[in-house]
């Protein structure tokens, strides 16, 4: 199985540190913070960024 993780830039250090502790090299997509609290229009930018990151993983 392949896992791809979406995290906001704020949580990137935590995700990387967790991955290191578990000896995992994560496929990480970083989007702007926050995700919670955004309305539908604001969320579009995060979806676009997450999709672009996923496409990069697909083509890597």
């Amino acid at each position, binding site marked *: 199985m392949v896992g791809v993780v979406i995290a906001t830039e*704020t*949580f990137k*250090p*935590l995700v990387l*540190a*967790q991955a290191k*502790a*578990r000896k995992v090299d994560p496929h990480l997509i970083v989007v702007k913070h926050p995700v919670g609290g955004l309305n539908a229009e604001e969320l579009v930018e995060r979806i676009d960024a997450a999709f672009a990151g996923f496409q990069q993983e697909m083509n890597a």
Partner: protein
Amino acid sequence: MSDSADTEILDIADLDQEAWQDYAIEQGWSDGLPLVMPTEASVARMVAAAHGDNEGFAPISPRQVVPTMASLAANAVMAGARPEYFPAILAGLRGILTPGYNLHGSMATTHSCAPMVMVNGPLRLALNINCSSNCFGQGWRANASIGRAIQLILLNVGGGKPGVMDRSTQGSPAKYAFCFGENEEECPWPPFHVRRGFAPEDSVVTVMSGEAPHNINDHGSTSAEGLMTTFAHTIAQPGANTIYGKGPYMVVVGPEHAATFHRDGWGVDKLRDELWTRARVPLKNISDENLAMYIATGHRPTGDFLTIARGPEDIHIAMAGGPGKHSAFIPSFGGTAVVSTRVKLPSA
């Protein structure tokens, strides 16, 4: 097991007090306050106080490394603890490391939770743990350094660095030290640890991932019913983390309020039942957007209210403090448990 990148003993340049503080802060070991130097001799004295305690420890999140007795003792020394406090520190840590406590979630969350540490049994008196006036506050070495030692262990062994691995939005003063004892001597009900199945002569440390205490002031009510009105409405907060991270909370009743409840025949079970049915958040106090989020994440209203616990068993009643008409509500992070661990006193 294999060693992590660090070594257990560090050979550093000779440092005076000021240089030591600067060095320790540079290493990221401090909570911001000065630290006692963990020399080999002082750490050995601390370790000796846990003689006979051979039970291992689970890895500490978020760094996921297994502590040694010496690394734990080094943090206790740095916190200013006396060696005789060390068994209580270890009992508290063991509670925190149980799966139900959810240390990883409580460290990574944006919530302001900190390990609440409550001590019961004879050790409270032996260590001079404050259970009475100002029990949540300053002035007692045991309260301050036991709570601080646990925090330093989570920082230094666990790796819970603020802003990096500890993601709390605002943090809390409780993250410096949050330790108190139950005022068993004035408590009209059986002590907390006895109600949890321990013997009265056991010394027990109870932990919960909680917020700092919220005051419940009621100088006017002269009956249990009147007090409960104030308690329930103070506790039913629309901003409670436990609306969507369902979990326990503590109510630490002050002795004068406890005496009123007791005089009117209210025991702990009655208090819990009344709080369960009455300390609920009215929907009119919650925004439509927030309510929609709660419902979308599976937290549906009960009638015209949202509950902040899963049932009366999530509501934990203790008694602490001194004279005065005040009690305290200690909300939890939510996805956590109240864990009580018997202190292993050193073998002869």
